[in-house]
């Protein structure tokens, strides 16, 4: 590794603009003649729209238009789609309720838009929205999954009787039942995985600009995957053909999954910009984010794990109800199925697994992928089960895990996934050492003597990342391939532009992707720039989510680099009158191995473009592209251990220590990897202790601002002790597994296992607020 190559802790190239206030987010952009949109949203969880009277609003100053749901339907803008087809156990397709971008007839969650005001300023649009009178006829609503599936429950969609989206199964039910029947011990657990609001700090925003002469749209938007947005807007929403639609996702202020999806607001902005003949800007406020950004999690699960007399797991049976909210968001269907149930083997040898997942509509905000997406729910369930089992079987929780670890790879689980490599003992050992697990009993006794309840909690997670092999996901119902593309453009002066379909919204690609180029060519990263987030610049891309950018996106860059280097070597060999096979690349020079003959990389580039003396038949120029489709998922794994104290008098939790030992395969920039883990851990801790998107029984959200929804703040969380154990991923040439979601996947179980250890009671749901912990301690 060079000073800026793979493995170096290079400070980020992108930071300068962010720390000096020069970042360029969507809301920072102004276009000539730009108008402003404000949406009129339903205050009811379920209602008929009987009429919209915009006559008063249209007379107000600065109002350009008031557009309604009926108009967008009349103009044949397509309904929102769900891009992953799931089939129920009876063979029927999932039941899709129609979701127009603005509701013409029926609203099904608080915050669903029915109309939009377009005005000369944001304030004038808001003023006019107050004057639009919407006549609603309220309908009974349901927010809870169990209430929604009861007979007689309010029905959301005529397409989905009983509010059921699907009833999907995976695994061998007979084998799982047989294991439970013959088990020495069966551990049963009911858990709720609380609904979360992703809350990227930058609210979603869109600016649409229609050019009537060219019949061309430009959309600036807060997207993790601008090419996917263009594809969906074009192919399914009838906005414009792809060559007439440019999507730009400039600096994006965090995503965590919530900015994968193509939302109604972008569709409406595009459509409205053509309608009014001027650019239209919409920037959400925080409450709109709570009401309309796809939420995460929201599972209710019953699970039974069977053990033999030697404490070996012999079977697992799981039944999960997944709350999808009022509509099926873009990738929602895959989250509690192929991203959840396929990870139910955890780090353990489990010969028989069966899971049933029932998807349910409720009158709440749609639920989709949020950091981890299905894998946190699986990991939380399995690690709560293991802790519960250790307590029931009266064995050490770490030892019980060790007894059941998978140690031979590759390992085929009973739920599709084939783990390629790993060393689960190594990460458990590292975490136990880091936290002095052996000394815990002494610390607990000492704390007890001081009147404190101290607990320790282990969580051994595994996730499937590097999403995803296209053929495999296609066979499971995905509507798209999940490869990545890259292009390497060498300029005549030898500087390099790397165009990638990955999108950085905090991940630091502008640094890490340069490090690969520096590693291979020995050029400084200042000579390299990364171009992303613009469909007019980058050939194509599937974007950033599922911890895929390094494992898939960077591998695509590597493939393009290899092609470019191969051509450059031919040019160098020709110039040096040597054999191509003898050319090596070192420190920015192409050398004839074992000699002092060399040509600097910029001279090779110049030769490619002057084309005065190229090998016979070679095309001028030095630019190559590649598409890379992974052969398998990657399987990051690790152990998190949390030690904390609970105040029995108040129920408040205080962290003592939090250690993480992760196996992410090869690390490109350990500083950035650590940052990803820190952030993920705090999202997991937030779920465990603080966060909960709550609805009342009538579907009214009661946590729709930062005044009500408890975001983790600096004094809620500890500093972390991180380490890495490494097994290289055999599935990609760089050996990368991915690190973006691990913290959020593994942390919550460690926290709840520690609190329940501290208080000596196992039944505790997330978020473990002081109130809830105090009640649990003092429950009879």
């Amino acid at each position: 590794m060079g000073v800026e190559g793979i493995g170096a802790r290079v400070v980020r190239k992108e930071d300068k603009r962010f720390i000096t206030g020069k970042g360029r987010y969507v809301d920072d952009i102004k276009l000539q003649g730009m108008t402003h949109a404000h949406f009129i949203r339903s205050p009811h969880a379920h209602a008929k729209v009987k009429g919209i009277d915009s006559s008063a609003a249209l007379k107000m100053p600065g109002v350009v238009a008031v557009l309604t749901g009926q108009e967008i339907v009349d103009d044949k803008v397509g309904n929102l789609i769900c891009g992953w087809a799931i089939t129920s156990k009876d063979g029927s397709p999932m039941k899709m309720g129609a979701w127009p971008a603005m509701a013409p007839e029926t609203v099904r969650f608080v915050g669903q838009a029915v109309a939009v005001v377009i005005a000369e300023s944001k304030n004038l649009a808001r003023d006019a929205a107050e004057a639009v009178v919407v006549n609603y006829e309220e309908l009974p609503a349901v927010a809870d999954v169990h209430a929604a599936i009861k007979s007689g429950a309010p029905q959301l969609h005529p397409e989905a009787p009983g509010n059921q989206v699907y009833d999907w199964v995976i695994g061998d039910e007979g084998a799982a039942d047989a294991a439970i029947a013959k088990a020495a011990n069966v551990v049963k657990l009911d858990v709720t995985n609380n609904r979360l609001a992703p809350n990227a700090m930058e609210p979603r925003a869109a600016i649409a600009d229609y050019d009537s002469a060219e019949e061309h749209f430009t959309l600036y938007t807060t997207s993790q995957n601008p090419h996917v947005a263009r594809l969906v807007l074009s192919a399914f929403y009838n906005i414009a053909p792809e060559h007439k639609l440019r999507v730009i996702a400039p600096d994006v202020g965090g995503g965590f999954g919530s900015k994968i999806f193509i939302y109604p607001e972008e569709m409406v902005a595009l459509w409205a910009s053509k309608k009014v003949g001027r650019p239209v800007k919409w920037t959400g406020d925080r409450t709109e984010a709570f009401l309309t950004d796809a939420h995460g999690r929201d599972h209710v699960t019953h699970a039974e794990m069977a053990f033999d007399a030697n404490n070996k797991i012999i079977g697992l049976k799981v039944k999960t109800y997944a709350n999808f909210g009022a509509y099926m968001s873009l990738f929602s269907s895959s989250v509690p199925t192929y991203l959840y149930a396929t990870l139910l083997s955890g780090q353990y040898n489990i010969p028989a697994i069966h899971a049933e997942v029932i998807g349910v509509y409720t009158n709440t905000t749609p639920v989709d992928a949020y950091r981890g997406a299905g894998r946190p729910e699986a990991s939380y369930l399995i690690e709560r089960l293991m802790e519960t089992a250790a307590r029931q079987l009266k064995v050490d929780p770490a030892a019980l895990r060790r007894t059941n670890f998978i140690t031979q790879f590759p390992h085929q689980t009973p739920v599709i996934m084939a783990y390629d490599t790993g060393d689960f003992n190594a990460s458990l050992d590292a975490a136990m050492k880091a936290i002095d697990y052996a000394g815990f009993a002494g610390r607990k006794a000492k704390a007890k003597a001081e009147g404190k309840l101290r607990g320790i909690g282990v969580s051994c997670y595994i996730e499937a990342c590097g999403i995803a092999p296209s053929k495999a996901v296609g066979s499971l119902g995905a509507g798209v391939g999940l490869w990545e593309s890259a292009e390497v453009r060498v300029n005549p002066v030898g500087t390099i532009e790397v165009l990638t379909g990955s999108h950085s919204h905090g991940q630091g690609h502008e640094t890490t992707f340069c490090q690969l180029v520096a590693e291979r060519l020995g050029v400084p990263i200042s000579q390299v720039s990364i171009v992303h987030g613009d469909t007019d610049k980058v050939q194509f891309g599937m974007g950033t989510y599922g911890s895929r950018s390094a494992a898939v996106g960077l591998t695509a860059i590597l493939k393009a680099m290899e092609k470019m280097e191969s051509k450059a070597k031919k040019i160098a060999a020709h110039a040096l009158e040597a054999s191509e096979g003898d050319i090596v690349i070192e420190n920015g020079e192409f050398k004839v191995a074992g000699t002092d003959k060399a040509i600097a990389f910029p001279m090779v580039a110049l030769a490619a473009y002057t084309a005065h003396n190229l090998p016979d038949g070679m095309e001028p120029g030095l630019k190559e592209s590649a598409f890379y489709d992974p052969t398998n998922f990657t399987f990051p794994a690790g152990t998190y251990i949390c030690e904390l104290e609970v105040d029995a008098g108040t129920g408040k939790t205080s962290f003592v220590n939090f250690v993480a030992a992760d196996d992410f395969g090869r690390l490109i920039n350990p500083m950035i990897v650590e940052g990803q883990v820190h952030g993920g851990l705090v999202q997991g801790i937030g779920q465990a202790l603080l966060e909960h998107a709550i609805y009342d029984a009538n579907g009214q959200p009661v946590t729709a601002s930062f005044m009500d929804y408890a975001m983790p703040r600096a004094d809620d969380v500890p500093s972390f002790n991180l380490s890495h154990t490494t097994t290289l991923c055999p599935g990609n040439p760089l050996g990368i597994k991915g690190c973006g979601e691990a913290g959020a996947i593994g942390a919550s179980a460690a926290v709840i296992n520690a609190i329940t250890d501290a208080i000596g009671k196992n039944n505790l749901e997330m978020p473990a607020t002081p109130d809830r912990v105090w009640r649990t301690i003092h429950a009879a």
Partner: protein
Amino acid sequence: MSTVKLTVNGKAVAVDVEDRTLLVQLLRDHLNLTGTHVGCDTSQCGACVVHMDGKAVKSCTMLVGQADGASITTIEGIAKGDELHPMQAAFRDNHGLQCGYCTPGMIMSAIDIVHRYGGQLDEATVRHELEGNICRCTGYHNIVKAVLDAAGRMKVSQAAE
């Protein structure tokens, strides 16, 4: 409409604005200083923090009229030319930012914290003082490190002046 006169990053500014205009709207929409962000509209997240007469304020919750005659410093105004403010440098060097959206407000709050404590800070104090600034990316670990690092750097740079 009123005419409001104030100093922004050392420059005198006079603007005619609606009385309901918020300070953050003046900065972003009228003066094109888009480094100051809006993250929550309820004074909770701190993405909008600027300095008014040297003290940290949340510009999303202040009417422009309340800033009449004041001296405002934004994230765009703290570096000396190409020389970063020690807090900016510490955020970069400690990887105290990821998506960058909360960063301007974090930096402006953090400078105020260091000033108020005369640079005498420990981790617990920094964490407590940052409770009005929310970050969703970093988990705060490296932000806390950055602020402690900058507290030392600011002492050195003050001593040098």
